[in-house]
């Protein structure tokens, strides 16, 4: 696959057309109807949660949030291959992956409500917290890859970056390290076309982003990230390469950020309705639904019912997060060091003393 879709050929890998017809039988992944349906439902849940989070933000019930709207198939496909002990080293727009790894929606809500506790991920193994500084996390993934190889573990490290992040030095250092060390890391570029307002066409003069791997000597592919089957197949091949050959892989998943960069951003300032419409046709949910309904595996009524069920579930978890309670002063201090230094204790006690004085006023 990596030969046939060598990024130097600038050939996009896809399996399914925009209406859900399989157009590339050769590379259709081995996946049962049941599993496909389940994946679709998980993607539905991620989308429902995402859209509701944006509306919660509009109501002032949650702070700044980076929407995932339109990018669901990337997580959807990768999740098919993800094992419990595999690592996920995220940026900040991988909601589907966090959920697939076992993070709860409540935790995600807590984080974006402004509680660090949302990054505990009590039920998830090998899931790192959100990393905001662009591309810096890719090196962490490479280091984890070193540990996996060092201890001869059967694990794959998945890590994520956006199209803009490919301009950062850390992106290039991570690819080089991973290729030199031959570690089982799968780098995923979620190329959603925009780094805030900046179009990917201006970000680079490379013919695509996958091609950046060539100089560093690692396998890569440019895949239609809105095509669930293509993503699933690429995930299978990449995981196999990483797991069996201890080799890193770079995946450029082509997608579109249908929402804003974050809820503080207004994309109408920098992109056209025509462009949005063009991508609407390639929406990942619409395509997979087309496939499922074409095979009589799914219908609108089932979708409506499940949508209502998910709405309730999202509301339930949101309310739990909303009732999380106060943020104690001690929590500002106690995770800074393994043991709190005296100088820090003194600052905390002084503040407690001030609070007492304030109460007495």
């Amino acid at each position, binding site marked *: 696959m990596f030969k046939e879709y060598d990024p130097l050929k600038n050939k996009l890998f896809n399996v399914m057309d925009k209406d859900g017809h399989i157009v590339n039988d050769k590379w259709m992944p081995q996946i049962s109807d049941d599993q496909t349906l389940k994946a679709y439902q998980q993607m539905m849940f991620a989308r429902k949660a995402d859209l509701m989070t944006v509306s919660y933000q509009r109501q002032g019930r949650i702070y700044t949030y980076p929407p995932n709207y339109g990018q669901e198939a990337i997580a959807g496909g990768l999740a098919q291959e993800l094992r419990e002990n595999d690592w996920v080293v995220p940026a900040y727009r991988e909601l589907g992956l966090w959920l697939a790894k076992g993070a709860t929606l409540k935790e995600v809500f807590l984080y974006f*409500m*402004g509680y660090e506790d949302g990054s505990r991920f009590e039920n998830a193994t090998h899931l790192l917290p959100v990393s*905001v500084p662009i591309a810096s996390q890719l090196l962490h993934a490479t280091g984890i890859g070193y540990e996996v190889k060092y201890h001869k573990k059967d694990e794959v490290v998945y890590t994520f970056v956006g199209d803009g992040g490919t301009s950062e*030095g850390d992106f290039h250092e991570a690819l080089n390290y991973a290729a030199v060390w031959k570690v089982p890391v799968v780098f995923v570029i979620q190329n959603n076309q925009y780094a805030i307002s900046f179009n990917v066409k201006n970000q680079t003069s490379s013919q695509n982003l996958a091609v950046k791997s060539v100089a560093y000597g690692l396998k890569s592919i440019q895949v239609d990230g809105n095509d669930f089957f293509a993503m699933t197949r690429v995930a299978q091949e990449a995981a196999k390469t990483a797991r069996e050959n201890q080799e890193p892989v770079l995946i450029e998943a082509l997608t579109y950020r249908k929402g804003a960069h974050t809820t503080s951003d207004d994309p109408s300032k920098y992109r056209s309705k025509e462009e949005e419409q063009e991508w609407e046709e390639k929406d990942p949910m619409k395509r997979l639904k087309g496939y499922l309904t074409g095979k009589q595996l799914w219908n609108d009524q089932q979708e409506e019912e499940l949508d209502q069920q998910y709405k309730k579930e999202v509301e339930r978890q949101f309310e739990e997060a909303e009732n999380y309670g106060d943020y104690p002063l001690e929590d500002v201090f106690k995770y800074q060091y393994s043991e709190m230094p005296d100088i820090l204790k003194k600052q905390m006690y002084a503040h407690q003393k001030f609070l007492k004085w304030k109460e007495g006023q």
Partner: protein
Amino acid sequence: MSVMTLVKAINNALDIKLNDNKDVVLYGEDVGYEGGVFRVTQGLQQKYGVERVFDSPLAESGIVGTAVGMAVAGMKPVVEMQFSGFAYPAFNQMISHVARMRNRSRGRYTSSMVIRMPYGGGIKALEHHSESMEAIYAHIPGLKVVIPSTPHDAKGLLISAIESEDPVIYMEPKRIYRAVKQEVSEDKFNVEIGKANVVQQGKDVTVVSYGAMMRDTQKALAMAKKAGISVELIDLRTIYPLDVETIAQSIKKTGRIVTVAEAPTSFGIGSEITAIANDEAFLHLEAPPKRVTGFDTIVPLPQGEHHYMPSPEKIYHEIEKTAKF
């Protein structure tokens, strides 16, 4: 004169300098077409063209590193770090080259540039969007560090920064980007770098602050006034080089000094001013110099941020204790 916010005043200063010096160029992430995520550079690309006001690829080291080259070759880059929390990939360029080019080349080359960056907390932001790390830059020999607290100063200081032959880190208190409005002249004027502003004369306690904390400090001063404490308020405006003379003179007058900042306590600007009190006014001191700051901790996410940010009550409390010491 027209009513300006900080955002408008900065935009106006950039406009004036782009207009009167063809070697001024403006770039950074999203600063061109969109006019910046805070709209600080709005309209400037339309007015001066994409060759002079432009979006850079997403790479902060790239932004500052290329600015060094431009400056060495005689241009005047004014670059933006989208948030101070994302400036660190460029830190190597700043500490290793921006700060050193003049000294290294014995004055033959300079890296005269302005690096703008919004900083500071209190806006309920995500991680890395709330820090106040001015002390890091102030500690680097070769850099000047400027922080305005009013639209007037923002404009005058930025014009001075762009005209300066030295590299200037120009930190913008984003919490008050639009919260403070003031009548500001539309003409070109300078606010001198290195000169603090005595905002209010007083005799009991000297209070020194800067940036967004000036607002909270002024609220505390209203409380102090009610309590009959006469405060002399100094707005630093320039973090480095510190205006030692103005600060020392005031401490000599009042014998008491309280500094206010939202940065961590240790090794901060307040610590430096305490050292000035010791060096320059030791025999005049009537009370131990006091620092009101954030903690030596990461700025908490929004739910815990109120613990961290010094409140007007906390500032007042320390002013009162110092006055009564």
